[in-house]
């Protein structure tokens, strides 16, 4: 029953009126409409259902749908505000809005904190920080001795954990970021300042035949 209609219609799920989204993000109505085009391409690149699945998210960002990574997963989860395993249009625009150069810094700081709070406990724990450093080293094929890794993590942690309770809370994170503003450099995408110019390069997404694809619909 659902098959025929979902193949035919590529309507946007979680669709919100552009003027609503424009009012609540740094984007103009025109820019939201441009993002609609980007969204349509991304959300139909592997599974033609108008929703961005994890594989499609990875394909768009890393040109490789199979790459699984700690950080990539965290970013996807944060974009997936409703936590239903897919990124809807509204979620997409609101999340991207945080990366806009004009977006409030507080939002970027909060987003980064949630990103690094791997187990969503409301704190960044020592083990989480170490895990992330190891993930970065693995990704970069950088080899550092256990000692050096410990040293870096310990040093950073003790500097950030001003209350000395063994974990970094949002308040400590905010203070730490104001000391080292470059820590949220990756929370800003200059491209978003002029979307109509940024677009040409991504239009080249590969068309993927349905028959070539075997994915789990739930997007594990």
């Amino acid at each position: 029953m659902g098959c025929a209609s979902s193949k035919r219609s590529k309507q946007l799920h979680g669709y919100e009126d552009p003027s609503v989204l424009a009012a609540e993000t740094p984007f103009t109505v025109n820019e939201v409409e441009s993002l609609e085009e980007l969204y349509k391409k991304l959300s139909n690149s592997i599974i033609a259902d108008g929703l961005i699945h994890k594989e499609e998210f990875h394909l768009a960002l890393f040109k490789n749908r199979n790459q699984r990574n700690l950080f990539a997963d965290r970013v996807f989860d944060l974009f997936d505000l409703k936590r239903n395993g897919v990124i809807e249009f509204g979620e997409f625009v609101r999340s991207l809005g945080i990366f806009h150069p004009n977006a409030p810094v507080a939002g970027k700081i909060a987003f980064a904190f949630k990103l690094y709070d791997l187990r969503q406990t409301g704190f960044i724990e020592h083990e989480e920080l170490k895990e992330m450093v190891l993930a970065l080293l693995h990704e970069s094929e950088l080899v550092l001795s256990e000692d050096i890794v410990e040293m870096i993590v310990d040093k950073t942690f003790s500097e950030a954990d001003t209350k000395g309770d063994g974990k970094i809370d949002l308040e400590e994170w905010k203070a730490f970021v104001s000391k080292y503003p470059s820590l949220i450099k990756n929370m800003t995408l200059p491209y978003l300042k002029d979307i109509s110019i940024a677009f040409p390069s991504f239009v080249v997404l590969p068309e993927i035949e349905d028959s070539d694809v075997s994915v789990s619909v739930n997007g594990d």
Partner: protein
Amino acid sequence: MAGIKNDEWFKQDYSPAVPDDDEEDTYFDDEAFSMSEMAYDGNKSPESPTLINAFQLIGMSSYLDLSGFFEKEDVSERKIRFTSNHSAKDLVARIQDIATEMGFRVQMKNRRLKATREHRGQKCVGNLSIAAEVFEISPSLYVVELRKSYGDSTVYRQLCTKLSKDLGVPMGQGQGLISIEA
């Protein structure tokens, strides 16, 4: 001609689909940031590299770089990192030398180095602008990050190969060379 060329240089910001490095700088008020970091570190000279903290290291992850939405090339074609045992001062000087040898115009900005090569009158083939930054992990271990701001991928790869070969930790010794093969 020279006047127009100068204009082109300053108009980098407005090139299509080209996020200018400087935009990032101005957004984060780089001067203020580096001043406060230096004040905190006490007597670090302006030329000394950023002493890396874990979050800075993590922030280098390509998986936290959402520019992929807007870039055709994979991030590995645009950014590499390698470790080096050379001193920071040495690294910066050597990168400057190598880039200059290859015909780049080099600018130093805080702890970052910007190298640009532009053929006169053209803004296309063979042109390249890169940014290099050196981070300290320990007094004998540094990480160099090379980012392509815009331009020719082939030239970028040539530059990366030369730099990491000359300056990076040799293969088989816990090397950190990112593969930059196409």
